[in-house]
């Protein structure tokens, strides 16, 4: 399929941010018609490289050469790279939730007739484009009503509308469940068969194995190696070694659980949807967690795991109807987030940009933002205390940042996630709810985060872990609950669990399947 002429060569690309050399003489060569994977640790410079390529970082702000389809390119902005047929789908989705699919696809690229936007034509084109990515949706649907997987496909449709030749996907599957991921990978194969070249950044080595024709590994802003792979036969260990500089025997650290009494127990928890009256998002859920135990929650996208956790966390989401929470055997009423935090409950949200971070803050202020009283001195914030606290979390979690004074918006995705985690560890919780804690985190850092979760459990904390990655749940949890359409459909002990059983329980609402 792929011939050997390169469609793209990036030569000696160097990009310096104030205080950070994000890219240091990086070289990348991508052949016509292939799927090229880029891997590397968090903060290695993958996203930055793609932003250089797509003109987000304009010509002149970096050094080095971009040769695309045989010509040297100097993109001043995204518009120019799009004109050349390069489209990028960013790590964080950038569509406007309140607008329709059609409006988003043709934003900035409107179909005009006699100076006015021709919406009928635009909608017709949208239906065609959606068909090309395997979606049959009403083009008037608002983006906010789509699942993340569908949004991702709409982004691709948007790229297709611009006659893309080279499609860049920055961690496209990090927010997808397995089914959506499979679907997306199929679409990428489809694009490839139509001669579109893809560059894909991913931390998921199994995906790379499944789909990539060649791999480039980047470490600390330098290209470590590039080599061809045969789809289906990727030496994952080789990639890991190149990425982190050593091999990683186990994906999950060893851990012997040391569980104590039940310290967190939820019964009869019923919550109504805040927007659609009468619709329940939690249907009389019951579950418990012991001290020192790691309890996983499995479920498909939209099953209501996040909603359940947020409703428990000081009723941050939904309309509470009934149900009780027992903390250390005592009934507690957590009517506000601050009450929940005071009780020693922490919730690390799944979407760091929207729910976890104030992007205007620096690392120091983010770390203390949920527990300011710990850095008060005579009622005033003591900047020394705050600095030391933030510095400690930064070291403990090995966040890659020049100092705690840098803005969180300049950190790479994975490091932002670590900062959010640090913010919640700093509240000294004894019940820790982690919603997709390793989304977008590289294998090496994942391992560290797993170790950290184990350490927290060993301190006697109850850990609740929501994850869309079944291997992660199977590798980490002592027990796993499954949720389907707002109901808890069953629970499995670690030794009894496997992905098949979980999958079945995640897709059936009747309790029968569980037992």
């Amino acid at each position, binding site marked *: 399929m792929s011939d050997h002429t390169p469609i793209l060569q990036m030569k000696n690309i160097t990009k310096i941010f*104030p205080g950070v050399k994000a890219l240091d003489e990086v070289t990348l060569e991508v052949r016509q018609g292939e799927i090229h994977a880029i891997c590397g640790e968090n903060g290695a410079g993958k996203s*930055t490289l793609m*932003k250089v390529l797509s003109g*987000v*970082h*304009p010509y002149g*702000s970096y050094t080095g050469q971009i040769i695309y389809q045989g010509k040297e390119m100097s993109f001043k902005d995204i518009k120019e790279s799009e004109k050349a047929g390069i489209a990028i789908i*960013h790590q*964080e989705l*950038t569509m*406007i*939730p*309140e607008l329709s699919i059609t409006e988003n696809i043709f934003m900035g690229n409107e179909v005009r007739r006699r100076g006015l936007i021709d919406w009928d034509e635009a909608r017709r084109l949208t239906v065609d484009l959606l068909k090309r990515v395997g979606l049959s949706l009403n083009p008037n649907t608002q983006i906010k009503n789509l699942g993340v997987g569908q949004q991702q496909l709409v982004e691709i449709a948007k790229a297709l509308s611009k006659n893309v030749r080279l499609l860049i996907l920055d961690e496209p599957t990090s927010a997808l469940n397995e089914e959506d991921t499979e679907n997306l990978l199929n679409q990428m194969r489809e694009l490839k068969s139509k001669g579109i070249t893809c560059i894909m950044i991913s931390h998921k080595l199994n995906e790379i194995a499944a789909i990539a024709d060649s791999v480039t590994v980047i470490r600390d802003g330098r290209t470590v190696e590039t080599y061809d792979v045969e789809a289906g036969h990727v030496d994952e260990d080789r990639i890991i070694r190149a990425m982190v500089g050593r091999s990683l025997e186990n994906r999950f650290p060893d851990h012997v659980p040391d569980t104590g009494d039940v310290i967190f127990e939820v019964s009869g928890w019923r919550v109504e949807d*805040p927007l659609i009256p009468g619709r329940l998002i939690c249907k009389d859920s019951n579950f418990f967690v012991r001290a020192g135990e790691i309890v996983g929650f499995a479920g498909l996208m939209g099953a209501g795991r996040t909603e359940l956790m*947020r409703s428990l*966390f*000081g*009723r*941050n*989401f*939904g*309309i*509470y109807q009934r149900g009780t929470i027992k903390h250390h055997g005592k009934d507690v009423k957590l*009517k*506000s*987030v*601050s009450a*929940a*935090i005071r009780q020693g409950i922490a*919730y690390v*949200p799944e979407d760091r940009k*929207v*729910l*976890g*971070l*104030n*992007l*205007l*803050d620096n690392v120091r*202020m983010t770390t203390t*933002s*949920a527990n*300011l*009283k710990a850095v*008060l001195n005579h*009622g*005033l*914030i003591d*900047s*020394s205390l705050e*600095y*030391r606290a933030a*510095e400690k979390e930064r070291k403990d979690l090995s966040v890659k940042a020049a*100092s705690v004074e840098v803005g969180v*918006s*300049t950190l790479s995705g994975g490091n932002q996630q670590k900062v959010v985690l640090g*913010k919640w560890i700093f509240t000294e919780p004894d019940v820790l709810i982690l919603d997709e804690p390793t989304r977008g985190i590289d294998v090496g850092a994942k391992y560290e985060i797993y170790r950290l979760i184990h350490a927290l459990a060993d301190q006697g904390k109850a850990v609740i872990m929501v994850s869309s990655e079944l291997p992660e749940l199977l590798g980490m949890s002592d027990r796993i609950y499954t949720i389907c359409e707002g109901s808890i459909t069953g629970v499995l002990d670690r030794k009894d669990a496997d992905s098949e059983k979980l999958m079945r329980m995640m897709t059936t609402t009747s309790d029968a399947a569980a037992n």
Partner: protein
Amino acid sequence: MKRIKEVMGGDFRQFTMVIALVVLIVIFNIISGGRMVTSANFQNLISGNAYVLVLAIGMVMVIVIGQIDLSVGSVAGFCGMVMALTARDLNFPWWAAVLVGILIGVLIGAWQGFWLAKLGIPGFITTLGGMMIFRGGVIWISKSISVPAPHELKMFGAGYLPEWGPAFTGMNNSTLLLGVIGIFAYAYAQLRRRTKNEKLTGVNEALWPVVVRIVLVGAVIGYLAWLFGTGRPGTSFPVPGVILIILVIIYHIITQRTTFGRHIYAVGGNKAAAALSGVNVPRTYFLTMLNMSFLAALAGIMFIGRATAAGPSDGTNWELDAIASVFIGGAAVSGGIGTVLATMVGGMVMAVLNSGLMLMGVGADRTAVIKGLVLLAAVAFDVYNKKQGRKSIIGHLFPGNKDKQEGGASGASGGSGGDTGQS
């Protein structure tokens, strides 16, 4: 250039603003043939603008939470009028009348905060309503006639510090004392910050930039003290200026060093994340609006003290000057960015423009045109600077994105969703 930057320390922007201000003053002084930098003019500059700057203190907090308050002028006028009326018609002593005026301000703030925090009506609408209501209110209760104010208030609006101590200093000793305190406080703060930084980070900032900074700022403070202290006998640094300085210090500490201050920035930066961090978003809205009207009442009273009477049109267009000061001071319309100190510099730029143009004999019409252009230029400069430094941030490329998601009514329902759940 690098050296200059070192002297400025981290606050490059603030220093450029201060330097722009100084340049502006020097230029006006040259054009007006030395009439700008005189004791009398500077004393006027302070007492004639202190009330706007007091408003700007509250306004920057309102803008940081991502709201705006259009009613401050009307509220100031209304509270001042209430005070004047209670003193004249109910025979309240002046201090009781002042308390009544301020209390009314707080109540008005609670009223506006209620609409915003509990009902989720955006501040723009809430206070647009307030602007009309209280403007109408002043005219109504005053029957469109000016009401004389208790003469004791003159002290707060245009008074001077007492004269005492030896005469050989050749100037007002209160002002001298103020200047000395200012210089020492600045030097102490700078040195303390340096040692603290060194202790924490282990990085040793060179001593010379700190010393140069202290000498420069110290010289400016010293010069100003001399200027203010050597005016006509009986004059000094104006009392409203002292009130302003005290308020600036208090609010600087509130915004930078207290939990409430952090919450203001958190809510303005990302409301949803703030709520998930345990910030009570409606309460933060409420208190910020309450505080704004409290300061508006204070500003109204200071103004009336100077004018010696409360008039039905007092406060007209003050909100515009206050808002302009905040944005010239570098605050962001989308919230989360802005400081009290920078706002004060922004407010002084406006004040100096007013005064300088007046000295040059430029009419009010053209002054307004120039002020408008300066506002645009200052904000454009800011936007340009930010683009240079932080081009890559997605949020910057799609600035409307986040606001759309959580702005207006939907955001407020997220905030009050918790309350509904309790009932």
